């Protein structure tokens, strides 16, 4: 197969359509986003000038929405690269149309995760001190290392499979050909090139999994390594990783649903994909419920006063409404929806995902705020109400995330063209081959 023999089928046409033309829909999506971003930017300028006093944070509520955003974004970053890598490594054939849109989520989510930390800094101007005076002992440094590694890895992992696609676009003279020429690195689709790329992708897929796991583990370590009540827990690592995959899949399904709808790719991102991802999400929901149950059971039966203070704040105190709607609406309800094939329709999955995503943000918030509000010493209880600055910046980040995603789809194929094509060619033999491997051997040695 050579780079010039690509089919002019509907997958290609639909995927390339936004690259070819700029419809009103594009503006309708981009302009409001730009407005929200500009507003968020204004809010940030306000914060830069006035200091973090412009937020609702205080002593002892030293961390608030920004840290919740950080954990949240890093969480959904797991949607992409990790899921795509797992699917690749396990050669799940149905992955082919969804890898790209998943990987893109990772890149942008990481970007805004990182940015959230920067926004949270009292002295962003001294960011380089982290490099100049970096101290390995600090979990923040572990985060810096892991996240930047993950970011690099994810970029590579996004880029590698993109090479054949940009080569196609270059050859087809669609869109920003000059850019594709540079990015394609002279890829012409020779077997050697292809082989090499696939090999690299394979290696990256294996490498990226531990990195991804490490990322959310160390994010959890930021909390777990301190002595704060309800943070200081060994389960936080896996709990955060699972939570990340959980929210990641939800984010991915929402993204897929939007792509499918707006680009008319119902034939590519099929119901079966939602069904499969839905199953995966169901499993994650169950694990989440299991973990959450375990954590609270242990905390409550341990009945340590400092921890109970925090737990009760969530269970019966001022955060009870958020907490129970998180449990009910974010865990139980999605589990019910996703448990049944009838629920794992596109609509069902999207509804479940939206519920999960918002609950997971709340979950992050509820990890941070109640613990900080209840310091160990008997001080007056902390109180925290995020200000307009925090909300504006948060929505600015979300908007920028969406914008980044849209712009990516405007420049690059959001569905991996060559992988689908390749799938068509190789899937059946591959699957049959696999199948044969599983079959009882004809003769026993």
């Amino acid at each position, binding site marked *: 197969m050579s780079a010039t023999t690509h089919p002019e089928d509907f997958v290609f046409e639909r995927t390339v359509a936004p690259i070819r033309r700029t419809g009103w829909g594009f503006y309708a999506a981009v302009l409001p986003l730009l407005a929200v971003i500009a507003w968020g930017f204004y809010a940030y300028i306000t914060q830069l000038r006035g200091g973090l006093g412009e937020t609702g944070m205080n*002593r002892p509520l030293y961390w608030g929405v920004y840290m919740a955003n950080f954990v949240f974004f890093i969480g959904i970053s797991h949607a992409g690269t990790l899921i795509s890598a797992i699917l690749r490594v396990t050669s799940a054939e149905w992955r082919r149309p969804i890898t790209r849109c998943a990987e893109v989520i990772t890149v942008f989510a990481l970007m805004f995760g990182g940015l959230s930390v920067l926004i*949270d800094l*009292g002295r962003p101007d001294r960011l380089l*001190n982290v490099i100049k005076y970096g101290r390995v002992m600090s979990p923040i440094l572990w985060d810096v290392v892991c996240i930047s590694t993950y970011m690099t890895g994810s970029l590579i992992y996004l880029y590698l499979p993109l090479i054949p696609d940009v080569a196609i676009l270059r050859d087809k003279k669609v869109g920003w050909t000059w850019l594709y020429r540079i990015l394609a690195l002279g890829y012409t689709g020779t077997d050697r090139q292809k082989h090499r790329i696939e090999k690299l992708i394979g290696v990256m897929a294996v490498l990226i999994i531990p990195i991804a796991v490490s990322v959310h583990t160390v994010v959890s370590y930021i909390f777990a390594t301190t002595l704060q009540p309800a943070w200081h827990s060994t389960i936080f690592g896996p709990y955060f990783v699972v939570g990340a995959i959980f929210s990641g899949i939800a984010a991915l399904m929402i993204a897929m649903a939007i792509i499918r709808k707006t680009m008319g790719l119902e034939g590519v991102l099929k119901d079966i994909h939602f069904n499969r991802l839905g199953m995966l999400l169901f499993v994650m929901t169950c694990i989440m419920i299991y973990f959450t149950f375990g954590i609270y059971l242990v905390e409550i039966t341990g009945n340590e006063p400092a921890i109970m203070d925090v737990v009760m704040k969530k269970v019966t105190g001022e955060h009870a409404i958020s907490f129970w709607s998180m449990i009910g609406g974010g865990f139980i309800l999605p589990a019910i929806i996703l448990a049944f094939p009838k629920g794992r329709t596109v609509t069902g999955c999207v509804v479940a995902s939206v519920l999960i995503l918002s609950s997971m943000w709340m979950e992050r918030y509820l990890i941070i705020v109640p613990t900080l509000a209840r*310091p160990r010493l008997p001080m007056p209880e902390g109180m925290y109400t995020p200000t307009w600055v925090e909300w504006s910046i948060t929505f600015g980040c979300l908007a920028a995330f969406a914008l980044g995603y849209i712009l990516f789809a405007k420049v690059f194929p959001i569905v991996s063209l060559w992988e689908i094509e390749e799938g068509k060619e190789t899937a059946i033999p591959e699957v049959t081959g696999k199948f044969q491997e599983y079959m009882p051997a004809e003769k026993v040695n």
Partner: protein
Amino acid sequence: MNPTRRDVLKTVVAAVGAAALGAGEALAAEPAKKKRKWGMTIDLDRCTACQACVVACKSENNVPCAGPDQMPLDRGIYWMDMLAIHEGSHPEGRSQYLPTPCNHCENPPCVKVCPVGATFQSEEGIVGQIWARCIGCRYCTTACPYSRRYFNWSDPVWPEEMKNHLNPDVATRPKGVVEKCTFCHQRIRAVQEKAKVEGRELEDGDFRKLPACAQTCPAEAIMFGDMNDPDSTVSELGRSPRAFRLLEDLGTRPKVVFLREAKWKE
């Protein structure tokens, strides 16, 4: 607590601390035979909750006031704070007041988490703060189990005239950085330097009331000194059966020791 782990952590902390001190540490130059370990005792049986220590610390260390807008938002900065603990209510109630500086923990959770070494443990056991390096991530503030660290939510403001009373020995801090009790190290340096010039050995009496809070305390509840010196006032008081430390079970090993007798007995 596992001593091996602690020792490992300590070595790392010490190394980093020493690096952070840089030029400053070279000045430590007190002709002491043994390394000092600064500590403080606060006698709650003496303390009257007058808060002179709180004001003295603000004045000595140029700690800004938060003002009427920021105080209700819990933005006040108190290197020395007053903790009021109430149990029950009138007529059965009990109240306890605790003056709370930084504990200068021997195993300080705050130091461990700082990504840039802006907070460090000096050779003499002071948990110091390099304001000019701090990036304001507030990790140390969340990590300190005693909430003894304060963040500058905005630039400090003094009415123009009141800038006159700023202590020239202590830098003011800009917005966006964390600050905390330093055991008035500027005063420690000053007496050490003075003793060096005078060619004199320093004694317990030179330190007992050295920090601003200890100096002003009308009830003489606060004592300061070298915990490595077994005969110092703080060491002696630290051995008292009345002695306890805050949240001892966390293993932070505070160097601020409180003293309290349960009750008056006939």
